[in-house]
C-alpha cells in the first residue's frame, strides 16, 4: 500500500487476522450471535458498524483532550448514540425504505462492545487519522467473521445465500434435496453461531500457535 505507511497499514490489517475483534479481543459477540442467521443481515450490520466506528473514532479522537476522564465512558456512549440517531432520523426522512431495513440494527450498533472498546482503547490516545484507520480495520475484522458465520448459517440452515435457493427447492424436492438432503434448522438458532465462531477460533489458533493464551 503506497498510500499508507507501514505502521498505518498495520492498523487496518491487524484486526483482520491476529488481533481480530471477535475471535481475539472477544468483543461484539452479542451481535455476531443475533443477526447472522442470514448473509444479507450480516453484510448490512457490517457496513453500519464500519460507518459508525470509523466516524465515531474520529469524533472521540478529536475530543480526546477535552473529555474529563471521570465521565469518559458516558461521553463515548453519548457520542455513539447521537451519531446513530442522527443517521436513523436522516434515513427515515429521505430514504425510508433503507431505514426500515436498518431500524433493527440501530439498537444493536449503540450497544456493540467493539465500538466502546475501540473508543476506549484507541481513539482516546491517538490522532484522528490513525483512529479512523483503526476504526475501519476493526470493523472490517468484525465484518469478516460476521460474513463467514452468516454464510454457513444461511447455507446450512435455509439452503439459501442472500435469499437465492442455491441448493434446490426443499419443498419441490429439486437439486440436493432430491437425494434426501434436509436443511438443518438448528443452524438458524443462536447457539450454532457460537459454535461456528468457536470453530473459527480453533482454526485460527491452530494455524498461529502464538495466539494461544498461557494458563
Amino acid at each position: 500500500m503506497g498510500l499508507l505507511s507501514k505502521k498505518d497499514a498495520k492498523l487496518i490489517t491487524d484486526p483482520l487476522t491476529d488481533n481480530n475483534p471477535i475471535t481475539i479481543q472477544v468483543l461484539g459477540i452479542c451481535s455476531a450471535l443475533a443477526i447472522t442467521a442470514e448473509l444479507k443481515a450480516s453484510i448490512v450490520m457490517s457496513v453500519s458498524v464500519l460507518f459508525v466506528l470509523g466516524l465515531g473514532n474520529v469524533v472521540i479522537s478529536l475530543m480526546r483532550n477535552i473529555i474529563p476522564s471521570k465521565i469518559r465512558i458516558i461521553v463515548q456512549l453519548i457520542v455513539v448514540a447521537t451519531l446513530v440517531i442522527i443517521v436513523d432520523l436522516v434515513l427515515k426522512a429521505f430514504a425510508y425504505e433503507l431505514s426500515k431495513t436498518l431500524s433493527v440494527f440501530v439498537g444493536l450498533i449503540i450497544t456493540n462492545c467493539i465500538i466502546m472498546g475501540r473508543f476506549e482503547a484507541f481513539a482516546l490516545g491517538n490522532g484522528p487519522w490513525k483512529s479512523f484507520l483503526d476504526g475501519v480495520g476493526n470493523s472490517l475484522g468484525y465484518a469478516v467473521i460476521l460474513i463467514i458465520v452468516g454464510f454457513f448459517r444461511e447455507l446450512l440452515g435455509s439452503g439459501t445465500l442472500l435469499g437465492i435457493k442455491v441448493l434446490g427447492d426443499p419443498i419441490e424436492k429439486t437439486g440436493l434435496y432430491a437425494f434426501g438432503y434436509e436443511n438443518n434448522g438448528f443452524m438458524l438458532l443462536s447457539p450454532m453461531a457460537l459454535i461456528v465462531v468457536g470453530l473459527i477460533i480453533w482454526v485460527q489458533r491452530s494455524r498461529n500457535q502464538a495466539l494461544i493464551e498461557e494458563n
Partner: protein
Amino acid sequence: MSKKTDSNSYTMIFAVGMVLVVGSLLAFLASSLKPNIDENKRIEKQQNILYAMGVNENDDSNAIFVSTTVAEEEFQKYITRQLVIEGDNISEDEKAYMIDVKKEKSKAKNGEVRRLPLFVGEKDGKTFYVAPIRGKGLWDAIWGYVAMDENMIVQGAYFDHKGETPGLGANIKYRFFMDDFKGEHLLDAAGDFKGIRVAKGNNDPKNDEKTDYEVDAIAGATITGDGVSAMIKSDLKLYVDYFKTLKQ
C-alpha cells in the same frame, strides 16, 4: 491526561455543556425532519393496504410495493370506501387509514368503544375488504393488513414488524410466508370465527389445504409466529359482525 480536565468543576461544566449541545441538536433535527417522516409513514400505510389487496409490483419472489410517487393516486383509484365501524354505527371517513390501531386498542381496554377501520377496494371486478391488525412479536410490535372477500376468505396479507430478529422472526414480511395466507378461510362451515394458526409440524408444506385454518410456521420464529396467530384471532374477529351484515 492533563490535570485541568480532572477537576470536578470542569467535569460538571463539560457534562452540562455536552447535554445541552447534543439535546438541542437532536431536538432540532427531530422536529425539522418530522413532516418528512410523517409523510413517509402515511404513504407507507397506503402502500401496505394496496399490497394486501394485490396492488403491488411483486416480481418472482420479492415483495415490492407500488412506488411512493404513485401510491396516493393508486390508493384513490382502488380504495373505493373507507369505513369506520364503531359498535353498530358504520360511517365513512376518507382519513380512516390514518387511525392509530394501537391507540384504539388501548381505548378498548379502558372500556371505550373502539373505532375499527375497514377499507373496501375494487380490483378487476372483485371487492376486497382490508383490515389492519396489530399485536406483539418476540421483541416489539408486529402489525399487518389482511385483505378478505365477503366470506372472510383471505385474499392477501401484508405483515411488518418493528424489531424481530433478522433471518428468523423478521421473515414474516417475506413472500414465502405472507403468500401462504392467500385462500385460507377464517370462518368455519357454520360461519363461526376460527382464525388462522401459524402451526409447526409441516403437515401441509405446499399449503394446498385451505380450510385447515393453519399455515406453515417459520423455523426459529415460534414466538413471532404465535404473535401473528394471536393478532389475526383477536383483531379480525372484531369484524365478523360487519361481514354478517353483508350477507343480509
